[in-house]
């Protein structure tokens, strides 16, 4: 068990799914209980990953490797570092939360619904664990299938349109990404005479800048659509809005991070020359900034509560990509932390929309107003979620945004300026949303007798609120976990970065010893 703990974490949801299929469809409560148990167990068995994690190790941990398709050199090779650890914990937690929040909102075709969620759980975990590009791609595509059905069957009015749009966009981008992967694979064969998809081996590839650029753009397409970066974001508002609550939660909470994770895990280390290419960095930064500002402005204009939250994701994910392409430790660390934060805050915001939608079956902001009078507990939770998303100090969002802005400032002051504008706009649309829905008098009598949060809703809000405060007040563990992997990536992309930093620091204050003098080179297996 301990040897294969990562495989256990990976396959628990799918094993649970197979057992779920044996339960007769009439036993609705049994199905619900079983799915929830599998979700919680999936989370619980991922906890040892944290407790046994060695944050000082420079290489991947819990590594497992077996031959899978020797003829083409694909292996079943999984392992995690600090970055994937955080995303995996987020995934197992959000999976169980989204299963729990579906208890009463999904009444139809339960068995298929929960089966899809559990399959999705395994697919997402696989994406964050794979150390083999082929395996990664299989999981990456596997995510699409359950998500298509979750949107397409249990979604809102325009669900079919949204589902196929989501599928087409991502499938198209992924195939083009596949071509990039195949170029890497072929180049490695050219240079070393061996076919392999293994990440650690592909790191030793030596490619000309021109080739790297092409591969970079191909991978970029795959990842940017998933993030989604402007201008590839158009699938997102539809998918988020039409998906059932739990679908939106998982989509915003976890799925979007697959794209940013792809940039951090694959684009930067495998294509270091292209990643610091000034044109590429500029394009990516500009797209991120457009995403931040545009997402926020569009959010301001929304009449639909859920769509507002959906567009806010475009804005927030813009911060994450901006942090990545600041290409310094602060930017990258902030980006990963912000990804976790976005999962927590936006997850909460979607859950909040879900709570009122389940009671009123409308998402129009104008239908609400003064809810704080009838649902005070709900309003409090919403306030916390809203402030955490807006980046209020003491809550999680602040830590991520602050670190990203620090990183952006180091890279280019103008970027930081735009990012701060984005934060201000973010506060504007969130506060305004809160004001319109929660404060003032009750304008619509249908809202006069809405019940406040029940115990089940508390059950899924509580852990998120606790996390939001914890990260806001004591983020040190996150920074520690991320230090080594981020340093690895920065060393890989900008080998002289730390030396230059030391030189600058020494010039400023020669007496202070350099804190990060020895950074181990990424271990190659």
């Amino acid at each position, binding site marked *: 068990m301990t040897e294969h703990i990562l495989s256990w974490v990976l396959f628990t949801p799918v094993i649970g799914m197979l057992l779920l299929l044996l339960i007769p469809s009439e036993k609705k409560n049994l199905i619900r209980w079983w799915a929830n148990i599998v979700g919680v167990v999936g989370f619980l068995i991922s906890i040892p990953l944290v407790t046994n994690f060695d944050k000082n190790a420079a290489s991947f941990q819990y590594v497992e490797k077996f031959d899978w398709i020797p*003829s083409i050199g694909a292996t079943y090779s999984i392992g995690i570092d600090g970055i994937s650890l955080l995303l995996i914990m987020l995934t197992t937690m959000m999976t169980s939360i989204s299963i729990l929040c579906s208890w009463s909102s999904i009444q139809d075709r339960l068995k298929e619904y929960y089966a899809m969620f559990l399959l999705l759980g395994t697919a997402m975990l696989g994406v964050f664990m794979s150390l083999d590009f082929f395996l990664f791609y299989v999981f990456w595509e596997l995510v699409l*299938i359950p998500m298509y059905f979750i949107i397409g069957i249990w979604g809102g009015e325009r669900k079919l349109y949204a589902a196929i749009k989501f599928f087409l966009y991502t499938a*198209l981008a992924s195939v083009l990404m596949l071509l990039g992967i*195949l170029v890497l694979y072929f180049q490695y064969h050219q240079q070393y005479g061996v076919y392999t998809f293994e990440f650690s081996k592909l790191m030793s590839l030596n490619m000309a800048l021109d080739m790297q650029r092409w591969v970079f753009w191909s991978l970029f397409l795959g990842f940017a659509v998933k993030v989604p970066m402007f201008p590839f974001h158009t699938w997102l508002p539809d998918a988020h809005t039409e998906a059932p609550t739990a679908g939106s939660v998982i989509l915003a909470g976890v799925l979007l991070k697959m794209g940013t994770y792809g940039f951090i895990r694959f684009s930067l280390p495998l294509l270091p020359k292209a990643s610091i290419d000034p044109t590429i960095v500029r394009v990516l930064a500009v797209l991120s900034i457009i995403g931040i500002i545009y997402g926020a402005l569009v959010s301001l204009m929304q009449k639909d509560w859920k769509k507002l939250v959906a567009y806010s994701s475009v804005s927030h994910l813009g911060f994450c990509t901006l942090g990545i392409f600041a290409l310094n430790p602060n930017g990258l660390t902030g980006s990963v932390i912000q990804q976790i934060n976005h999962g927590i805050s936006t997850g909460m915001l979607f859950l909040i929309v879900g709570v009122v939608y389940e009671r009123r079956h409308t998402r129009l902001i104008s239908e609400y107003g003064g809810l704080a009078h009838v649902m005070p507990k709900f309003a409090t939770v919403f306030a916390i979620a809203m402030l955490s998303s807006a980046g209020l100090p003491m809550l999680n969002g602040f830590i991520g945004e602050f670190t990203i802005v620090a990183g952006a400032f180091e890279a280019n002051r103008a970027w930081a300026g735009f990012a701060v504008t984005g934060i201000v706009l973010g506060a504007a649309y969130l506060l305004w949303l809160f004001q319109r829905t929660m404060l003032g008098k009750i304008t619509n009598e249908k809202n006069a007798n809405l019940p406040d949060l029940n115990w089940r809703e508390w059950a899924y809000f509580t852990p998120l609120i606790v996390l939001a405060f914890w990260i806001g007040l004591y983020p040190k563990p996150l920074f520690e976990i991320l230090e080594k992997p981020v340093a690895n990536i920065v060393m890989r992309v900008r080998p002289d970065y730390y030396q230059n930093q030391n030189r600058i620091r020494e010039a400023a204050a020669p007496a202070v010893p350099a804190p990060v003098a020895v950074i181990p080179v990424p271990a190659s297996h």
Partner: protein
Amino acid sequence: MSEYYTSADHFVLLPAIMLALFGCAILLFEFLIGAGAKQRRWLVVLGLAGLAFTGRALWMQQAALNAGAQLSAFKGALLVDGFSLLFNWIFLFTSAIVLLISYKYLEIENENHGEYYGLVLLAQCGMFFLACGNDLVTIFIGLELMALGFYIMVGFLRNERRSNEAAMKYLLLGAFSSGFLAFGFSLLYGLSGSTNLRDIAVAISQRGAGDPLTFLALATTSVGLFFKISAAPFHMWAPDAYEGAPTTVTAYLSVGSKAASFALLLRVFLGPFGDLRAMWQPLLIAVALLSLLVGNLAAISQTNVKRLLAYSGVSHAGYMMLGLVAGNQTGLQGVAVYILVYTFMNLGALLVIVAMRRENILGEDIDDLAGLMHHHPVYAIFMLVFLLSLAGIPPTAGFLGKYYIFLALIETGHYILAVVAALYVAVAVYYYFRIVRSMFSREEAPAGVGIPLAGSLGVRVALAVTGALTLIIGIYPEPFLRFAGESLMK
């Protein structure tokens, strides 16, 4: 045995002998035993027995080949190598599935006659010669034997206008294309003075590049072959023939006939025309791109699943040709893998349509599949697997085929072709998902929802086998890749 028929010849010919023997036995069966419903059941058994004997003969050939034997017969007119065996296994599998699914379907159509089963075996006999033939005459006779079987089978629903029309179209266009092929063959014979492919290859290589006569031979032969594999712009017969034919025959035609024609195409292009790569590569690229374009775009607007699969089959032919365009080891392996997985997924998809035919429901329209997930979830899930595979989404078998083709194109520097081929995947996803959408929607309920599907034991077995293979190859492809790879190496 005589000098004209040695034991080595017999060994090579044995599968064809078995097929012909059992094919004829089935034709005689109704005369000798009777044509009652009770006796008819034995037709399937007899057919499967024939396939079992054929399989045994193929198995022995495979064993001899693995032991390193050189298998050729009739002074090099027939050649058994890994390549031809791979195709023969595909034909055997296809016929077995077709036999399994036909009985109930033909009962429903009220056209269950013995000759159908005989024709299935005889057509397979033709395919055998296409895969093994190394001589123009042998190949042409094999091709006509196969085609004649199909002309009759496509029109097997003799009381249905649609089926008759399809058969007539297929016959006319098929004869036309055979004419082209025969013309090309005659030129090849004129160029070399021999019908043996190897001699022709030698003669062509001596004529040098840019020879107009060689080009004419190449062009006419190619046109004939493109007709047979239903590549655009020679695909016009396919949608009509696929739609009008009994669905079981559509399955046989779309897989068996296509695979056999591809075997011939590979043999001819890599054999006699092997040195003319510079001449045929642009031609093949043009046809492949056109097939992708026409196949994918025409499939979007189809409402009939059989027509849709016909057009998507055109695009699949385009992908396979791209493997040949790349022409390296990976590319050829890719073609083999692609044909192998195409066999499983396309048969699977069509046999779900076979099961949809019940009482007075045709079950061929996309709308007829509406709500399938509710009343027959197992069929719907199998269909989903087949469609995902046809679209090339991992972890299904179809992804492997596309993977090899893309890789081969990248290895040979055809980046633009690779990108174009990849872009069409999105189009394919769109039209395949129209079927998925219909199956999983519950809003519109078509007529006849309450009528159970025509899932006979044969259909269920066939469904399980094709579905399992499509998934297993997707998840653990190693044995199949090795099999396909080794077949080509020998």
